[in-house]
């Protein structure tokens, strides 16, 4: 059981793309040398900015909702676990359904494996592997008081909206305190032809406004 006061905070602004988390994650024996975390490039054509992607442990996990084999379960502390090996049929539904791209299909094991917030560590009161190695603390695991003290200009949010779907998660994302919320219209993007340009998320806009007003 992961203690309630310990929460995961993700701060994509602070990610320096060093891949230390990926390396640390893949060293864990509980998922056989595969990394359950990956870095996303925000706008690869124009920037080296990356964001780490851990499982956000949704209140209504889409991966579990679409699982035809009833293999994905959530423990009492809200952590969505890797698919149960005897049940998983390796159908890839969860991989396609997750809006964050978290579940990883390992066809050699015929099993979906995903970030479980290092359940073996966090349930014993330790920090997840990625949060212990992150040099810029883009991945932070601790209490809410600690993060508020460390990041006075950021605010934690755990609500994401993809088109019509609003997702509330266990993991928090640190955002600029005075920034305005951006919503991605996923369904519109699906019918859009690729133009070779990527959509840029102007997530830092609000922060600049805040600096100028001071």
């Amino acid at each position: 059981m992961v203690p309630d006061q310990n929460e995961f905070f993700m701060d994509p602004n602070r990610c320096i793309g060093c891949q230390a988390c990926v390396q640390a994650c893949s060293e864990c024996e509980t998922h056989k040398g595969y990394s359950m975390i990956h870095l996303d490039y925000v706008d690869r054509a124009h920037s080296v900015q990356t964001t780490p992607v851990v499982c956000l442990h949704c209140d209504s996990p889409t991966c579990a909702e679409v699982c035809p084999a009833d293999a994905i379960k959530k423990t009492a502390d809200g952590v969505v676990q890797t698919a149960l090996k005897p049940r998983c049929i390796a159908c890839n539904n969860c991989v396609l359904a997750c809006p964050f791209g978290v579940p990883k299909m390992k066809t050699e094991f015929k099993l979906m494996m995903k970030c479980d917030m290092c359940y073996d560590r966090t349930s014993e009161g330790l920090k997840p592997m990625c949060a212990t190695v992150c040099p810029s603390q883009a991945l932070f695991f601790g209490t809410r008081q600690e993060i508020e003290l460390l990041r006075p200009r950021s605010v934690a949010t755990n609500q994401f909206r993809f088109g019509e779907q609003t997702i509330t998660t266990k993991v928090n994302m640190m955002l600029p305190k005075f920034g305005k919320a951006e919503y991605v219209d996923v369904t519109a993007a699906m019918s859009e032809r690729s133009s070779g340009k990527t959509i840029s998320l102007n997530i830092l806009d609000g922060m600049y406004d805040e600096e100028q007003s001071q």
Partner: protein
Amino acid sequence: MIRSEREELTIPPDGRSLDEQPKWRQDFPIDWAEAHYVSRRDFTKFMVLTSLAFTAGQFWIIVRNFLRKRRGEARIQPIATTDQLPIGGSLAFIYPESHDTCLLVRTAEKTFVAYSQKCTHLSCAVVPQPDKSRFYCPCHEGSFDLATGATIAGPPQRPLPRIRLEVRGDLIYATGVEVKTI
């Protein structure tokens, strides 16, 4: 604070509580605690039905024994002549029904033994090895004693069914089957 074990954590997409959800969603909850929870009623139902099945099984065994007794002794059937087998030789024959293969082994000048060929573990065909004084089952390395049919090694628990033999003149007859459980 640690949450209680059975608190509903997962919020269904329509936002209503679990009791208002369709039956399939109640039957396959996402929450671990909810999925592993067994109600007293379900547990009792399982226990009652299982014990009922066991009771019915006992009656079935009684009926089977009764029917077997009524069928009576197996018929007497000539198998081979005494000079047909050398010492240490073996012969497969069918007795008492058409799908029951058995093995006749000549262990000494005047000693013949016969057993069912079906291993008592999973009905593989056993192989006679008179030089090692045993029947060997290649499926799971089971062994039976050649002289008594008793188990020596491997997974089988019951001895091989013995075929009663009778030598009249120079003909060997099978006169019955002795099924032993130990």
